[in-house]
């Protein structure tokens, strides 16, 4: 409970004594590059393969000819939109970006760079953390859209190349019974997950004390806590919004 209280006080501290708007714009653009552009490669690889594997494994489980083949791509689409794109990418995002945020802030803390900002009269939490959170909230939904597209594309490539489905069957399955709200739901989830991953990782890194060993521990803790928070939020959002 004490840690949760400290977390909310930390979040509140991001919005007091802020620097000028122009300062944040520059920092947010820098962070967007680090958070978004640098994560594209891993997102491309993972989402394409997950889509492909989902298509192949769904086809493998369809042993009866009573179910039309286009259902395979329908399942790939719905799994991708509802779960794979926002949630699996979030776990990868926590591992890459979350550990990076915690490690960076932890190193800044133990090497007194955070103290240096405080001595200058700069709100270090706001200056260092707010741009990271905003950049994650801006970039993560874009990564989820990319992941969703590539996952469905991966499924298409796998399903058609293995001869499980014809291209027209796959496209038909993608379009049939499409619920537009699922996309909205995926984007809502992505914003919530981005906030949780970035803020929890920043909180863990910002309050690191000790030496290099503790920075390593903070990075690990950031990933673990972020993943737990993401999966809990995933369940809650599914209950509330579906």
């Amino acid at each position, binding site marked *: 409970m004490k840690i949760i209280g400290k977390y909310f006080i930390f979040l509140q501290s991001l919005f007091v004594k802020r620097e000028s708007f122009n300062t944040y714009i520059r920092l947010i653009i820098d962070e967007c590059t680090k958070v978004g552009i640098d994560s594209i490669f891993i997102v491309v690889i993972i989402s394409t393969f997950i889509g492909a594997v989902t298509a192949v494994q769904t086809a493998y489980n369809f042993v009866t000819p009573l179910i039309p083949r286009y259902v395979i791509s329908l399942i790939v689409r719905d799994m991708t939109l509802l779960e794979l794109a926002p949630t699996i990418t979030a776990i990868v995002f926590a591992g890459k970006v979350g550990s990076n945020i915690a490690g960076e802030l932890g190193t800044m803390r133990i*090497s*007194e*760079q955070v*103290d*240096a900002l*405080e*001595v*200058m*009269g700069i709100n270090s939490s706001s200056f260092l953390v707010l741009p990271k959170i905003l950049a994650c909230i801006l970039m993560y939904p874009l990564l989820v859209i990319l992941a969703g597209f590539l996952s469905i594309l991966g499924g298409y490539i796998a399903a058609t190349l293995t001869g499980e489905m014809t291209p027209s069957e796959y496209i038909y399955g993608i379009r049939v019974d499409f619920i537009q709200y699922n996309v909205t739901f995926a984007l809502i989830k992505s914003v919530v997950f981005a906030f949780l991953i970035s803020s929890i990782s920043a909180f863990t890194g910002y309050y690191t004390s000790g030496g290099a060993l503790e920075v390593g521990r903070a990075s690990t803790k950031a990933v673990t806590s972020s993943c737990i928070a993401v999966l809990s939020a995933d369940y809650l959002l599914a209950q509330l919004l579906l």
Partner: protein
Amino acid sequence: MIEVKGINKFFEETQVLFDINGKFKQGQANLIIGSSGTGKTVLLKCIVGLLTPDEGSVFYNDRDFHNASKSEIQDIRREIGMLFQGGALFDSKNVEQNVGFPLDMLTKMPRDEKLDRINFVLNRLGLVNTNKKMPSELSGGMKKRVALARAIVNNSKYLFCDEPNSGLDPQTAIVIDHLIQEITEEYNITTVVVTHDMNSVMEIGDYVMFMYKGQKLWEGSNTDILDADVKELQDFVYSNKLMTALKEQSA
């Protein structure tokens, strides 16, 4: 001038500072000395506001720092420059960006003027042609000088140095000591240096406060310190063979 009055500091149940009083005058190097773990850095952090004392006050030219309004604290903080033990340079910024950081954040100085000021300070500290170097490319002594440049670039009125000589060879340490002293006198800054280096004490200690187990046991100048009649201080001063030999020679 900076004045500390009745500073007490606890970490949970443990008291680490006991009723510390002292005056750090403008235009001179004020040294806080003592063995490791005596509370020197805690006192320094209380003075600069990184820690809040449980009792007592710190006055910056009669402005009560710990009881001031947020805007007054902000004003005082913007007059402070600090040289941290490890330099605390921002790893992602080069020398020019590190030194110019306080100007970027705290002033609205035009870009050209800013660059002139950065170059002036870097030249003053003997850091020529280092503008584009990253902190990882600098030696320990250079890092300290860059950190010192960052501390004074904004025409700071108060300069704090936490163990400025730690990790440096004796020659570089003396260079840093002299730079601190020269800058203090040249710009009439109130400088407070935390150190356990007796060389620094003898080189620049205009005013010396000796701390032992969280208490101030002695204060005076570096000329008085060798004859001070405090056992703990004598043990500290003559803890190395060089100082003992000097004492025996003078006797």
